[in-house]
Structure formats: structure tokens, C-alpha cells
């Protein structure tokens, strides 16, 4: 550990030292910087024109607000500074021979322009300023993370950026990367994701959720988390909406490039192992051979179980963008982002043994053999984005954008079940080597038009085709029994026997065809009426096939020398093979009224949903197909009252829904040893009432303080529970469990002191839901009984406390920006158990990340990012006081808590990135 810190310090030293070469002097110079008169913040991209009456020079300010004219003829110059949104300023300077003029020019904001969205949109949209302003003028509750903030942050995927937003926590995947956002304690099913405001489909085989680690953060202009809906927004968000705004076409030639190399410290003492997946066919055996085909063992490629060690697992990341206004009418931006990452982690896991035992206490937890897992995850993340803007004239423009994201992941998971080898004890382990290759794609194409029809009437429309896919052509779980004898810690004998093991294939494809149209009519000054609608046709096709090779317990040496005489099991359904079609027709009407200190945005939205599914369920059982038609009426209102120029009070109400996941409808039964799982064709959508109250206070330009609270009332929330469907027949299935509440408090602030800045947010959330849980206990006469009871708990994934704190250091003179970020996520339920008191809780986590930017020249910046400085693990525990019964075996690894059972301990170590950025 100390060694690591040393390494970090050395890097910091290196980069700081390098930056000293950046400052050079030349003669006959007029230079300076342009700042905001109130905050002193540098203004980026301001235009400076100097003229001595004969010759005129023009330049723009850089990232730090500075400008520089070199080799200027000495004399008297008129210097004019212009910046959109600010009052122009003109002054006179005198440049002596071989002299240097260095002046700081402060500009003041147009006083009336704070109220106009249209003006701010001409600011640098990637800046923090713009983000704050948009938050401030927005009619609804919204949080924005700017591209600038993302750039300086330690995060390289959107999944990780999200956790910096107030009231947002993320669910991490086995790499330790943020995967799904939990907004105000509401899990992924309560939120949706958009690109430039257009909803995108999900590659997931069961849910509507978008794994946010698909998206590289470098393509973003800003990330918005919208927490209160307006009538013009789709209504199926109860928690919130994550909107990724991709970089927009610039007004002049802009190109950027950055590249970096990195390393995950976990790999220092765990070799990174992977397999060769090139040429893998993205088809299932049935898709290749037709459904009548009888698969043979030779159809399954065991080469994917040949692991090789990567000698130098160096992470690489490249991003480039170019944009220009080619003609007066046509502008474009094209951007690409590519990441090639080696991620490692390890995990100790106590798998729930399914059913608890009734003694000594009811629901005493029971575990399957303890597992030790080591992950080697190879990621290739590609994001591309192209946007074309065409302005026919001042009043009519169209734009086309296409965004394509692809994440390839090859995972080798070594899993030891039993821990004999881990603990060097005699015994039997089952060893599982898993190879997974998954390709996830999200592709969005939008054609958009904006028309100012008259002074008062404007119309915009969008035509959208998007697609999301997940293909898992490799999912193999090699399994062998490993009987070992250890003598005084030394392995003295070992017998391996290969077990039957599966090859799984999953394809999931979701296609969206949507059309949107909106019209805005200015009824009077300060009174805008808008109406519009959208239609979406969405199809989801899911295919799952599983084939088990019969290994006959043969003596195992290598998988290449193994012999498979036949298939043991063929499962081409498993309930995961289904098709869903969803048609949504929605329309709305809204009024925006600005008067004096008031701003009110309100109206209603109507969403008609027509959902059908068709499954592989036997025709002899009910529910093979289903059709659901329902209509939601969703009113909402957002009120803003400006107490003074720099502070305001907001209140909002909206009604939102959450549609069941496709899979949840389908009553295919997945039998299990402990309980059977089944979809529920009677499931209803979730409805909600949501209210928000917020006070915000701005100090100057970038400093602000916001405090808010929210309340949510959920009708028919969907949760899983064990229920009796017929006499003696119980299934674990999604149910509508009455009503639930969720409320909380949010606090956000930013404060700058000269070169230092501090920003943070804190949120408190409390939710409560009551569902059925099963209890296994002993009755008075000593018989064991199982019965259902109700238990109240927080919503899955809801943390009571979430906090972010960042310390920023910014020296324009030295060209250094540094950020130390801390994320705290309070305890939350990670997995819901069907049994009372046996939910798996994730312990509160805090993570410390560091990043550093050093300007090497006007256009080149060197940067470094270090994540998880303190090597913080993710720990899951059972907060069950009946601890100990299973622990008849003492000395179980990882048990460090006296009042809980630690059931999972994930270790990720630090990750480093060092690179440069060219702008």
C-alpha cells in the first residue's frame, strides 16, 4: 500500500515538474485574461480584437480565459472584448518596444439575460457555468454535470460519472464500475435513460434498464439528471431521467484528441487471464443449423476455455473529435471514443443456501459452500457520434445525429466452491472456470427539425430509429470436482473429475421506432402554450439456449483432452425466449407562464400503452401469450418563485408510472430446489405521485447552495415475493405490493476560494415498502412450519445517506487543476431474499479518487486519474442476529464483524490513468 502511495506521489511530481516548461516569454506581447466581474471566473472563448487603426488582430481566450498576441508592432491599440451574454468592453492599451502588456479584463453579465434560455445556450455548453445556469433557469428539478467537470473527474464511463450527481448512487458490476443508477433511492426500474432527450432502448434480456457502463464519458457535452417531469417528457420515470447530451456541432473548427494509458493495481499480484474469442459466431446452434437440428458435443468450442496470461495488461483510452461549421448552413461534429481495459477483481462469497433453517432461531441463515472468485475482465468500449446541423435559414433547421456504442467484454471468472484450496485444507472443492463473451450495442439515429413558423409559433419534430442488443455467444461454465489432501499446508494429492457443464447462448434485441412532434405557441408575453405527442413502436426479441455437455465424471486433466460422448441436457427456452411488442401513443398539453417573480410550468400528459408478449410456454399452461392495454393520465406542475435575483423557491408535482419489465409478465416457471420462480401475467404497472420542494441560492457565478426535499407515493410497486398460486403450489414471483412511500432531503453546494474549490452534495432518503416474506420456524409442538408474513423494509438499492465531496485546486498561472473526490454511499439492500430477515445488505462504502490536469502548452494538457485510492472493498452482509449457526466451522475467512455475517467481499484495488489531451 505504501509503495502505491509512493508511486502516486512520483507521478504527481513528474507531471508538476513537466508543467514548469510550459511558461515561456517572448517580446512584443499583448496578453491577459478575461474574467467575470463578479466571480473572477475565466471566460472561455471570448473574442478579443486589437487594432492600431492600420492592422487588426483577433484571437479567442483559452480554457483558462487567457489570450495572447505575439510579435505585435508596438503602438497604441484599441482592445475590444466580446463575449456572448456579457456586455462588450473596449479599452486602450499601449505596447512599448520589446514590452509586454498584461491585463486582466473583467466583463459583466447582461443583467436581463439570466432569464432567457436562448441566450445561455450560446455559452460554452460544456462548461460548469452553463451547467449551473441551465439548472438555475430550468423549470423543473434538474442536476447537471458538465463536460468540463467530467473531464477533470476521475471517471471514464458514464456509469461512474453518475454517482457524482446529488441523490444518485450506482450499482456496481463485478469490475467495480457503476452499472445502474439509483436515483433518490429508486432502483433502475423507476428511471429511464435518454440521449439528447430521446429515450434509448435496453440491451438487457429481462429489464428495461440500460447498463450505463456502456457509455464512455468523453462523448458527453453534459449529463443531466432530471428529477421532476414536465408534461412534454415521457412519464415512465418515478425516480428520474438520466439524459446524456452528446457534444454539439461547434460554430467554428474544433478538434480535440486525447489518449491515455493505465493500469489496474489488482493485476500486480493476480495474473490477468483471458481467452481468444476472435471469430466467434454470433449465432446459437439452432440459428446456425435450424431448429430441427440435434446438436452434437463437437458443435461446442471448448477452445474458449483455454486461458492465457496477458503479460502487460496496460489499459488504453483514446478519444478524438472534430467539428466545424463547413458552410454558413452546415455544421457537424464527429467524435470517437475507444477504451481497451483490463479489469481485475476478487470476491469472497457466501452463497445463500436457499432455504434457511428453523432452529435455533426462525430463519437461521444457511449457506452453500463458500466461494472464492477471481475475475479477469477485458473490455473494449467503443463510442462514436456524428451530428450534422443544417440551417435552411434563421427560422428553419434540421439536424441528424447518430450515436453508436459498443461494449465487448470477455470475462474469465475462476470460482472455487469449498475453499479447500484457498485455505490449504484437505477436502473437496468444485472449481468453475467461466468464459463469457458479451457484446452490447446501443445505436440511436435521430432526425430532428426545428421551425419558427411565425413569431409566436414554433414546431419541432424528431424521427428516431434506435436499437439495443446484447449478444452472448460464449457463456461456458467448466466445472470439475477437485479432491485435495493437504498435509501441513502442503498439497500431497489431488484428484480432479470433470462434471457436466453448460454452454449458454443469449441474444436480446430491442428496436425502437419513434416519432415526436412538439408545437409551442406564445399566447402572450410570458405565456407559452405547448402541445405535442409521440408514438413509439418497440419490439423486444429474446433468445436463450443452453446445452450441457455430458462429462461422466471423467478424470480431468485439461479440457482439450476431455471427451464428451453426448449432451446431457438441452434447454432452449428457460422462459428467456420471448417476444414483446409495445406501442405507446402519448400526447400532452402544457402552459408556461412567467410573471413577475413567478414561473409556472404545468399541464398534463396522456400515455396509451399497448403491450403484447408471446412466450415459449407450453400451450397446456395458461399465459403463453398476453396483451395489455392501458392509459395513464399524468398531470404535472412546476412552480418557481424568485425570492430575489439570486435565490428562488421551487415546488413541483408530477405523476409518473413505471411499466413492468417485459420478463415479469411471462408466466414461464423456472423450477428451483428451494422455490420456483414465475412471471406474473396479472402484474400491473406502478403509478406514483411525486412532490418536490427546493430552495436555491446563488453566490456569484459558480457558487451556489440548494436544499430540497421530495416525497413519493407509489401505488402498486412491483416486488418479488413467495406466493401461493394453487393449493400447495408456491412460486416466487413479481407482485404488486400495495403502496409504498419514499421521501428525502437533498443538499448541494459549491464554494470557490481563489485557487481552491469545494463542492459537495448530501442526500437523505427514506423509503418503506411492505411485502410478503416466508418464515421457517418451529411450532409449539416442535414441528417445523413455513408461513408467510409481512415485512417492511426500504426499497431495494435505497441508501439512507449519500454524499459527494470534491476538493478542487485550480491554478491558471501554473496550469494545474486537481480534484480529490470522495463518494459515500450508505448501506442499502443489495439482494432481496424471499425469507424474512435474510436480505443481503451492502455496507456503506466510501471511495476516494484523485485526478490531476497539467497544462503543458496552450492546447496540450497532461492528465492523471487515480480511482479507489484507499482500495475500498464492497462488502455485503446479512444483518441477522441469528449469526453463528452455520459457523460451527470456525476460522471462516472474511468474518470480521461481530453483529453481522459478511457474505460478500469484493476487492478491486486502485486504477491509474496517465495521458494527454489536445484541444
Amino acid at each position, binding site marked *: 500500500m505504501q509503495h502505491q502511495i509512493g508511486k502516486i506521489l512520483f507521478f504527481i511530481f513528474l507531471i508538476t515538474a513537466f508543467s514548469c516548461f510550459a511558461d515561456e516569454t517572448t517580446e512584443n506581447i499583448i496578453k491577459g485574461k478575461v474574467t467575470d466581474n463578479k466571480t473572477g471566473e475565466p471566460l472561455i472563448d471570448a473574442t478579443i480584437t486589437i487594432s492600431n487603426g492600420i492592422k487588426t488582430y483577433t484571437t479567442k481566450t483559452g480554457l483558462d480565459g487567457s489570450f495572447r498576441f505575439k510579435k505585435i508592432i508596438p503602438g497604441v491599440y484599441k482592445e475590444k472584448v466580446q463575449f456572448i451574454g456579457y456586455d462588450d468592453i473596449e479599452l486602450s492599451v499601449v505596447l512599448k518596444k520589446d514590452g509586454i502588456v498584461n491585463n486582466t479584463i473583467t466583463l459583466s453579465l447582461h443583467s436581463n439575460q439570466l432569464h432567457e434560455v436562448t441566450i445561455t445556450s450560446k455559452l460554452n455548453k460544456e462548461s460548469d457555468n452553463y451547467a449551473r445556469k441551465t439548472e438555475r433557469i430550468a423549470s423543473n428539478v434538474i442536476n447537471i454535470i458538465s463536460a468540463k467537470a467530467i473531464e477533470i473527474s476521475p471517471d471514464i464511463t458514464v456509469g461512474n460519472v453518475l454517482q457524482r450527481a446529488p441523490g444518485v448512487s450506482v450499482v456496481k458490476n463485478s469490475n467495480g464500475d457503476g452499472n445502474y443508477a439509483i436515483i433518490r433511492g429508486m432502483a433502475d426500474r423507476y428511471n429511464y435513460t435518454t440521449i439528447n432527450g430521446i429515450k434509448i432502448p435496453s440491451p438487457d434480456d429481462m429489464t428495461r434498464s440500460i447498463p450505463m457502463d456502456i457509455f464512455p464519458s468523453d462523448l458527453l457535452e453534459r449529463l443531466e439528471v432530471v428529477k421532476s417531469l414536465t408534461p412534454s417528457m415521457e412519464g415512465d420515470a418515478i425516480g428520474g431521467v438520466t439524459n446524456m447530451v452528446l457534444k454539439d456541432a461547434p460554430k467554428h473548427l474544433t478538434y480535440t484528441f486525447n489518449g491515455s494509458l493505465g493500469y489496474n493495481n489488482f493485476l500486480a499480484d493476480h495474473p490477468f487471464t483471458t481467452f481468444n474469442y476472435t471469430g466467434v459466431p454470433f449465432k446459437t446452434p439452432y440459428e446456425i443449423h435450424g*431448429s430441427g437440428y440435434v446438436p452434437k458435443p463437437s458443435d461446442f468450442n471448448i477452445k474458449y476455455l483455454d486461458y492465457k496470461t496477458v503479460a502487460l495488461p496496460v489499459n488504453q483510452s483514446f478519444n478524438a473529435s472534430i467539428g466545424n461549421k463547413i458552410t454558413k448552413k452546415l455544421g457537424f461534429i464527429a467524435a470517437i471514443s475507444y477504451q481497451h481495459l483490463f479489469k481485475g477483481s476478487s470476491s469472497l462469497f457466501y452463497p445463500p443456501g436457499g432455504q434457511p*433453517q428453523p432452529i435455533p432461531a426462525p430463519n*437461521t441463515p444457511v*449457506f452453500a*459452500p*463458500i466461494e472464492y472468485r477471481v475475475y479477469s475482465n477485458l473490455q473494449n468500449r467503443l463510442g462514436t457520434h456524428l451530428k450534422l446541423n443544417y440551417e435552411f435559414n434563421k427560422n428553419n433547421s434540421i439536424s441528424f445525429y447518430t450515436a453508436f456504442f459498443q461494449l465487448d467484454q470477455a470475462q474469465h471468472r475462476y470460482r472455487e466452491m*469449498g*475453499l*479447500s484450496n484457498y485455505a490449504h*485444507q*484437505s*477436502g473437496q472443492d*468444485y472449481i468453475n472456470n467461466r468464459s463469457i463473451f458479451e457484446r452490447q450495442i446501443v445505436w440511436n439515429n435521430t432526425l430532428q427539425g426545428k421551425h419558427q413558423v411565425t413569431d409566436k409559433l414554433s414546431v419541432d419534430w424528431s424521427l428516431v430509429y434506435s436499437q439495443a442488443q446484447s449478444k452472448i455467444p460464449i457463456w461456458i461454465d467448466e466445472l470439475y470436482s477437485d479432491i485435495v489432501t493437504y498435509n501441513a499446508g502442503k498439497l500431497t494429492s489431488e484428484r480432479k473429475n470433470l462434471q457436466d457443464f453448460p454452454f449458454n447462448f443469449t441474444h436480446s434485441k430491442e428496436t425502437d421506432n419513434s416519432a415526436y412532434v412538439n408545437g409551442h405557441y406564445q*399566447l*402572450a*408575453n410570458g*405565456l407559452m402554450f405547448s402541445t405535442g405527442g409521440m408514438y413509439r413502436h418497440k419490439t423486444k426479441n429474446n433468445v436463450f439456449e443452453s446445452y*450441457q455437455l455430458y462429462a*461422466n*465424471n471423467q478424470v480431468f486433466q485439461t479440457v482439450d483432452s476431455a471427451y464428451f*460422448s453426448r449432451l446431457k*441436457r*438441452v*434447454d432452449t*427456452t428457460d422462459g428467456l425466449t420471448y417476444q414483446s411488442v409495445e406501442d405507446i401513443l402519448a400526447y400532452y398539453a402544457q*402552459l408556461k*407562464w412567467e410573471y413577475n417573480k413567478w414561473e409556472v410550468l404545468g*399541464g*398534463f400528459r*396522456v400515455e396509451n400503452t399497448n403491450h403484447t408478449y408471446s412466450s*415459449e*410456454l*407450453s400451450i*397446456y*399452461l*395458461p*399465459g403463453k401469450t398476453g*396483451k395489455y*392495454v*392501458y*392509459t395513464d393520465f399524468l398531470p404535472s406542475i412546476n412552480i418557481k418563485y424568485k425570492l430575489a435575483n439570486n435565490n428562488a423557491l421551487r415546488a413541483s408535482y408530477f405523476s409518473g408510472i413505471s411499466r413492468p419489465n417485459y420478463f415479469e409478465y411471462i*408466466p*414461464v*416457471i423456472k*423450477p428451483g*430446489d428451494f422455490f420456483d420462480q414465475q412471471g406474473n401475467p*396479472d402484474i400491473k404497472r406502478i403509478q406514483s405521485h411525486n412532490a418536490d420542494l427546493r430552495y436555491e441560492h446563488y453566490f456569484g457565478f459558480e457558487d451556489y447552495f440548494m436544499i430540497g426535499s421530495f416525497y413519493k407515493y407509489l401505488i402498486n410497486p412491483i416486488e418479488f415475493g413467495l406466493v*401461493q398460486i*394453487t*393449493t*400447495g*403450489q*408456491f412460486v416466487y414471483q413479481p407482485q404488486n405490493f400495495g403502496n409504498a412511500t419514499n421521501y428525502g432531503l437533498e443538499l448541494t453546494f459549491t464554494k470557490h476560494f481563489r485557487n481552491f474549490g469545494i463542492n459537495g452534495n448530501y442526500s437523505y432518503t427514506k423509503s418503506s415498502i411492505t411485502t410478503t416474506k416466508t418464515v421457517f420456524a418451529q411450532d409449539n409442538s*416442535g414441528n*417445523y412450519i413455513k*408461513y*408467510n408474513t409481512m415485512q417492511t423494509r426500504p426499497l431495494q438499492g435505497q441508501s439512507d445517506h449519500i454524499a459527494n465531496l470534491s476538493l478542487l485546486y485550480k491554478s491558471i498561472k501554473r496550469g494545474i487543476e486537481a480534484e480529490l473526490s470522495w463518494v459515500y454511499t450508505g448501506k442499502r439492500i443489495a439482494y432481496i431474499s424471499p425469507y424474512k430477515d435474510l436480505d443481503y445488505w451492502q455496507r456503506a462504502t466510501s471511495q476516494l479518487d484523485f485526478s490531476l490536469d497539467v497544462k503543458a502548452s496552450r492546447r496540450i494538457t497532461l492528465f492523471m486519474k487515480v480511482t479507489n485510492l484507499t482500495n475500498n472493498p464492497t462488502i455485503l452482509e446479512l444483518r441477522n442476529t441469528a449469526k453463528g449457526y452455520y*459457523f*460451527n*466451522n470456525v476460522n471462516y475467512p472474511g468474518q470480521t464483524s461481530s453483529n453481522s455475517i459478511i457474505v460478500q467481499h469484493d476487492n478491486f484495488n486502485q486504477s491509474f490513468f496517465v495521458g494527454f489531451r489536445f484541444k
Partner: protein
Amino acid sequence: MKQNKIKNLIFNLSGLPLLLVATSVLFSCNKNTSTVTSAYVQVGQTVQPGNISGSIKGTMQANQTYYVTGDVIINSGDSLIIQPGVKVYFKGAYNFWIKGNLFSLGNATSPVYFTVENQAKQDVPGTPVASDPAFQGTWGGLWTDSSCKNLVLKWTAIQFAGAPISAAQPPIVGASTGDSYDIFFQNTNGNFILEDSWIYGATDDAIRLKSGKFSVMRNTFEKCGPTGGDCFNVKGGGVGDCAYNLFIGCNTNGPKASDIGQPGSVQTNCNFYNNTVVNSGFRCVELGRGGSINYEQQARGLAYNNLIVNCRYGLRIIGATQSYLGNALVVADTSNIKYGNTFNYSDSIAGVNQFYPVTPDTSNMMRTGAGVPVSGLWTRPQANDIPNIMSMISANYYPGAPYANAAINALVGQNNPLFVKFPLPEAATPSSIAYASGYDFHLQSNSPAIGKGYTAFRAIASVPVGGDFGANITQPGSDIGAYQSNGSGNMH
């Protein structure tokens, strides 16, 4: 002008709530509909000799032959009755899906057969698992739905079954594609009766009783399970008697009871008595698991008068939840398990030392206040067991502790139960004799097992008793094992 504006505003704003109200009224009466397809039911056809498939009901006439050419369904509420001497030949990997009732009523002279026509058995010692037809699953199995009230099989031979449920989703709940059992029963309130029958071969559990009332008596189980599976695997809510059965060459256990699954007020309660278990447990992959008779995971019951010959482990009862050499053990309802009068015989030292399964490594175990390790393996030698190990072991013995000593090791080949025809000692251990044909497991008149049984308890008799459709219960017998010297017990 300004006033005008405000008026305008007020007018416009007054329109908003009106609009809202109007729309609410409009949509408050909107209709939300859902349409889910109901189960398809093909009316059951009265069964006729010859080819059968699809939905059938009625009676299969005595001594007729039926060829199964596709999956067979017995609808909920329908019954199929099979008279003596009927032969049901499977022409492929088809299943019986039983949502109603099935009564297969053979007799001693005219058994009913569910089998494959002209399929020869390969009852030769040493036949490899991969080529033994017993383990191939040539046809599927008898699968009952949760609506099945009665599955009654008397004098019925189930042979070469166990093909996994293929491609399509099964038409019953509780099972999934790929599952492979000869017989599957799941209705907690239903009756499963298997009497005087033969189960020959299986690819996993021969019988998976997910739940239900049962009486499994006087049957012969041979060659069940190639690398996994029990002969009679009882899960949550299974209640009944399993007695007078001969289990030979089982992969794991003969009968096994656990209370997992099926939430409800019914606890698994199994009486396992007067069974003869021979040459079992050796194909099982897992250490410490499988051999003869087993109670685990909250199951309760009585286990007496069982004769265990050359099995990997003796009667195994889990007494604490812990890990055994890396495998999970979950405690049985030990306060409600009674056992004794077990007759153990083995031709190997390893077998003798596992009459009462032991935990080789106690170093990691929790200990009682007196410092005695609490082992998950809980079977304690009983004074009326044969041989009486209790009299030969040290005072420090606790259940699960290794008990080997010179005197005990000398028990190899001792206490021969004296079957009428079976080679004891066996030529090799583990023995590859996994079948009963050619042998006779009746006791010779001078067998040490005779008269050593415990009879002061009764069968649970959870199922209807008597008549053609009810069970014929044989109460505990005075001789240990399935074959009684008075001619009662197993009739094979």
C-alpha cells in the same frame, strides 16, 4: 395595456385547470384491459390399444399393448386406469404428463410394463455407465402436475426411463426443460403409491417427490443414476412410508428425505424401515454424500430395521449445519428422528469405518462446552444395531468421530446376513453388481438378521389404504431387511 395583459393571463390560466378537469373526466373512465391466453385443453380421448399420444383417458385393457408415439396427457379431472398385463412401449423420448389420475394396477402374475420394446438389459458386472442402457434414458418419465391427485403404480415395471424434457417447455408446472426423472410428483395434498414395482435405470433421481403423500413399499430399485441422483428423493412436504424395498447399485442413496422447498405447514416426515440397500453410493461424485439412507435439511422420521450391505456410507443423518470437506451439510430435524436396529455389512475396511459416517477433520469445528466437536454427521451407533459398534469404541466417541480400531477393522466380512443367493463376500469392493436379477435377497433361515427387527412403531400411512386404488401397507417387520422369514415384505 398592462391590465389587459394580466386579464389575458388570468383568462389563459383559468383555462388550464378547466383543461385538466376536462381531461381527468375524459380519462377517469378509460378502460384498461388485459388478455392472457388460457391453457389449451384437448378433450381426452378414450384410450384404444395400438398407438397412443395426446390427451387420453379411460382404461387400458388387460394384456393389451400400447405404443407411445408422442407425449401423452391425462387432463385434470380425467383418469387413466391400466389393467394387469398391459404393456406400454415407448417409441421415443416421450413422456406421460399427468394432470389428472393414473392408476396402473398390475398384479404378481401380470405386471404392467412401461418400457422399450425388445430393449435387453445388460446385467453383467462391470458394464460401463456410458453404454449401459439403464442409464441412457430411452424414454422420458411419468410427470405429474400440481393438479394430479393420484399416481398409483402397483406391480408395474418402469424401465429405461429418464430422458430429459426436451426442446419445448413442459406442459406442467414445477419442472423445466432438461429435467430427467422416471417419476415426478409434486402435489402436497396428492397421493403417490408405488407398490411391488420395479424401477430399472434412471439418469438422475429415479423418483423426485417434490412434495406429496406417499407409500413406497416392496419395490425393487436397480441401477438408478449414472453419476448423480437418488432412488427416492423426497423434498419439502413429503410425508409417508418407504419400506420393504430393495435398492441395489444406486448412484447415491436409496431413500433420501429433506424439507427443502414448498412453503407450507407440512414438514417432510418419512419413515424408512425394513429396506435392503446393497452396493450403493459409489458412483456419487461428492464426498461424504450418498450410500444408503439419508436424512437432511429439516426432515424428520423413523429409520429402523434397514439392512445395509457394501454401501459407501451407512445411515446418514445430518446433525449440524456445516461444511464437510467443502460440501454443505444442513441439519435434519434431529429431535424428531429415531433410528436403530440397523444391520451393517461390509467387505472393506473403508466401508466398516463408514457404517456411521465420520468427519475426517474436526479441527475447524465448533465445540460444545465440554470441548467435544459438534459434527454435522450425527448418526450414533445404537446398542441394537448389528454389529454392536457401540460396545467396541472408546468412551471419547462422539457422533461423526472416526472410530476405527483393530477390533472394528476386523469386522470386514463379518456378520454375513446370509442372503439366499448373493455372493458375500463380494469379489471386489466397490462391487459392480448393480442389479437384482439372478440373485435372491431373502434371508436364509439362520441369518443373523432374523428376529432382530423393532416393531413397536407404526407406518405413517398418509395415503388412503385398501382396495384397488389404496395402499397396501406392511407394518414394521421383525426381521431386518425387506424380506421377512414369515413370507411378508418384498414379494419379488
